[in-house]
């Protein structure tokens, strides 16, 4: 046991520390990645401090102020129910980002867990789980979301579930592949021969090995999750339409496109900015951690 502990400290820990330091410096030198990180942080701040930043209550309906033009009191005017548009845009960040982040955490955790288990144990459980994921993978994501939401009805947990669900096979596959190769390493064999339990090997030795692909995938899928939430809200399958979400605002602005185009322009711009930020950041993380992942993550079915 002592030897195992010593090895654990000597090998992966010290190595990974210097690695992460180098990655951090590389990230600072990556212009586009830095730009993406700045945008992402700004959007996150917008979501967190929405109550402080928004001048009005975003769901307060004012029948006497419908479609007011831009003015000093309403910076971007008011919408079809007289609600302050600027405040709704700021609050919109909250639900969109929240659902996106939780959905990504959900698919990352479940996908990684399945990937670790199937890659480590192989055999029957591997076959069974991977076949189940093949089935899930065969379903077109938006249509599966449509089917589930039409049946259980739209709600925030349901949205998180359907958005996360489609990404699970991809995480599981990549983690499984990484585990299959990582478990051939000598320190894993050594740990096993020293009597480490499977759980310990998975947690202590294999998980750190698959962190890079997980980080790459989850940062890239954040952008995807936000787009997915926005499109479902745009289709009217999102959260309660009185709550401000960018997709929902775009949907509400659609019918007034000719007369009040700004109602559709601004929510879309913000979605684009958020997605762009997360994408740029994800790309940079991918380039730094593993350039060879390029084709696997960006090309193919994952985008």
């Amino acid at each position, binding site marked *: 046991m002592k030897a195992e502990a010593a090895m654990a400290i000597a090998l992966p820990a010290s190595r990974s520390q210097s690695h992460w330091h180098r990655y951090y410096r590389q990230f600072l030198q990556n212009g586009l990645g830095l730009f993406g990180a700045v945008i992402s942080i700004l959007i996150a701040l917008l979501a967190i401090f929405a109550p402080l930043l928004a001048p009005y209550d975003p769901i307060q309906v004012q029948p006497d102020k419908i479609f007011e033009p831009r003015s000093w009191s309403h910076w971007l005017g008011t919408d079809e129910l007289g609600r302050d548009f600027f405040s709704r845009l700021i609050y919109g960040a909250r639900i969109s980002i929240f659902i996106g982040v939780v959905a990504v955490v959900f698919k990352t955790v479940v996908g990684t867990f399945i990937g670790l288990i199937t890659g480590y144990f192989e055999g029957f459980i591997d076959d069974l789980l991977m076949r189940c994921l093949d089935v899930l993978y065969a379903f077109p994501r938006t249509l599966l979301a449509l089917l589930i939401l039409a049946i259980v009805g739209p709600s925030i947990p349901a949205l998180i579930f359907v958005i996360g669900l489609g990404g699970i096979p991809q995480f599981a596959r990549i983690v499984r592949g990484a585990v299959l190769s990582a478990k051939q390493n000598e320190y894993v064999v050594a740990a096993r021969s020293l009597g480490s339990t499977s759980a310990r090997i998975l947690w202590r030795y294999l998980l750190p090995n698959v962190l890079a692909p997980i980080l790459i995938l989850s940062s890239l899928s954040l952008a995807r999750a936000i787009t997915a939430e926005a499109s479902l809200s745009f289709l009217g399958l999102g959260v309660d339409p009185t709550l401000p979400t960018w997709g929902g605002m775009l949907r509400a602005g659609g019918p007034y496109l000719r007369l009040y185009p700004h109602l559709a322009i601004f929510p879309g711009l913000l979605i684009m900015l958020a997605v762009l930020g997360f994408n740029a950041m994800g*790309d940079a993380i991918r380039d730094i951690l593993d350039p060879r992942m390029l084709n696997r993550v960006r090309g193919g079915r994952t985008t």
Partner: protein
Amino acid sequence: MIKYLLNRLAQLIPVLFGCSLVVFLALQLLPGDAAQVFLGDREYNQTDYQAMREYLGLDEPLYVQYYKYLTNLLQGDFGRSVRTHEKVLPAILERIPASLTLAAASLCVALVIGIPVGILSAVKPYSRLDQGSMIGALLGVSIPNFWMALMLILVFSLYLDWLPASGRGTPPDLKHLVLPAIVLGSAYAATICRLTRSCMLEVLNYDFVRTARAKGLLEFVVINKHALRNALIPVVTEVGISIVGLIEGSTVIEVVFAWPGIARMAFQAAQYRDYPMLQGCVLMVAILFVVVNLIVDTLYYYLDPRIKFAGAAHEG
């Protein structure tokens, strides 16, 4: 080759089986039971309700219901629409050409933009053009397609009045196809552009390219004849996968442009709680997805015999 194909076909069966099971079981998640939903808002008494339950076979155990569902599916009976009472399968098949047309047109847009720009970027990496196109590609994958659709409608339909904003036209014409195809194709153009660039960059480092250059061949010939052919193999796979991705990614686009395809049909079915129709659409696209994947993998195998499929098939 044949062995590989048979092997893949055998792998398809459990997947398709699983798909039908998921679609079948999804309906079990309904609050209340299916009979209530199928009767909908109409006034009904207990006898009607019982009759409906009997008609739907809800009194039987779940596995019997699934067995019946499956045998019906295998005989091409996808059930009947709750709303219009038409048969589901013919209604879906009617919509497939529109979806495929849109997918094909979008693919053309994606290829015509993506491949040339990707090649040019790879030939002069880190040049202004390369940086510009990579930023363009990043924008392309980041712009939400439904927003781009609205903006194009705003400019080209509402302000300029050049192109129609909805429908497919009667009879179907090209004008109606332009905007949806551009919107749907642009995101794939970005993906294909990036992929072409990275594959091309890799291939340009190979010995045979150096040999071709050393022979004194024109750079144009080296790029287009020697390098491109090899670089395009992963792109072909991507294109194959995109075809299905295009059909599924087109859900929002078909709705925005009122394009009469299968995805819009699924959306309408969801709105009207027309579950048999929705189930049919989802299952049909899943089947399409699986079959196209098989064709793509086979094509890939044919194009690049070096690939060992023992492991690759599993990784998907």
